[in-house]
């Protein structure tokens, strides 16, 4: 499961999606392949978290895990 937040949700046209991949890096590659160039630009400045925390690209991803695409933040 991939979660798209804020501007990434807008770029994806959805808040969540299931894409192929057994690692964080593979999931991100699938996201890149499925969505348009707007998502490509956003991924370049975004962070990717796994289950609520930063994760390496080679961290394994199973069916119950949540990968999140986090564009630059603007809280406060």
């Amino acid at each position: 499961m991939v979660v798209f937040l804020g501007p990434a949700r807008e770029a994806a046209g959805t808040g969540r999606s299931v894409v192929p991949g057994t690692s964080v890096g593979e999931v991100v590659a699938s996201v890149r392949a499925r969505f348009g160039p707007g998502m490509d630009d956003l991924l370049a400045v975004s962070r990717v978290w796994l289950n609520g925390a930063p994760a390496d690209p080679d961290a394994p991803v199973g069916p119950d895990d949540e990968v999140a695409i986090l564009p630059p933040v603007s809280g406060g």
Partner: protein
Amino acid sequence: MRWPGGPVATALRVVEVTEPDTWVDLTAEPLPLAEVVAWATVPGCGGLAVFVGTVRDHAEGRPGVVALEYEAYEPAAQQVLSQIAGEARRRWPEIGRVALLHRTGRLAVGEASVVVAVSTPHRAEAFAAARWCIDTLKESVPIWKREAWSNGQAWSPDAHPLREVGSGGGGR
């Protein structure tokens, strides 16, 4: 969003049990500013510094802002608020109480979006820690602001690439 038994749930439970002097929250309700100020006042601490962020009626190139909408990645955002409070205590061990509350959802102009409160025995540390907390919150908490102004609406261009708490910069 829940990760049963995962790191977030565990971290939140630990914070709630062991840190009665820390108050972090993400809430769709108006922020309880008066309660935060009263709560953060403790007998050992003579100085309380508070920062309140409120919705301005303008933004760069966007006159006549009428509302903001904040979207948070929950519960991860709440966990990062706890991390910020913990890191602030590590940097300023003299902190008595620390509160970090962020509003979510739609806010009108003049409403408070965030409040930070830090009490310490002396005022220099209260100011420094409160400043560090709000600066860090803006860079580290997964929250996004959408602005609605006189003739449009869009995500705020005033955004920072997400940083991990304590990854350098500012304060002690």
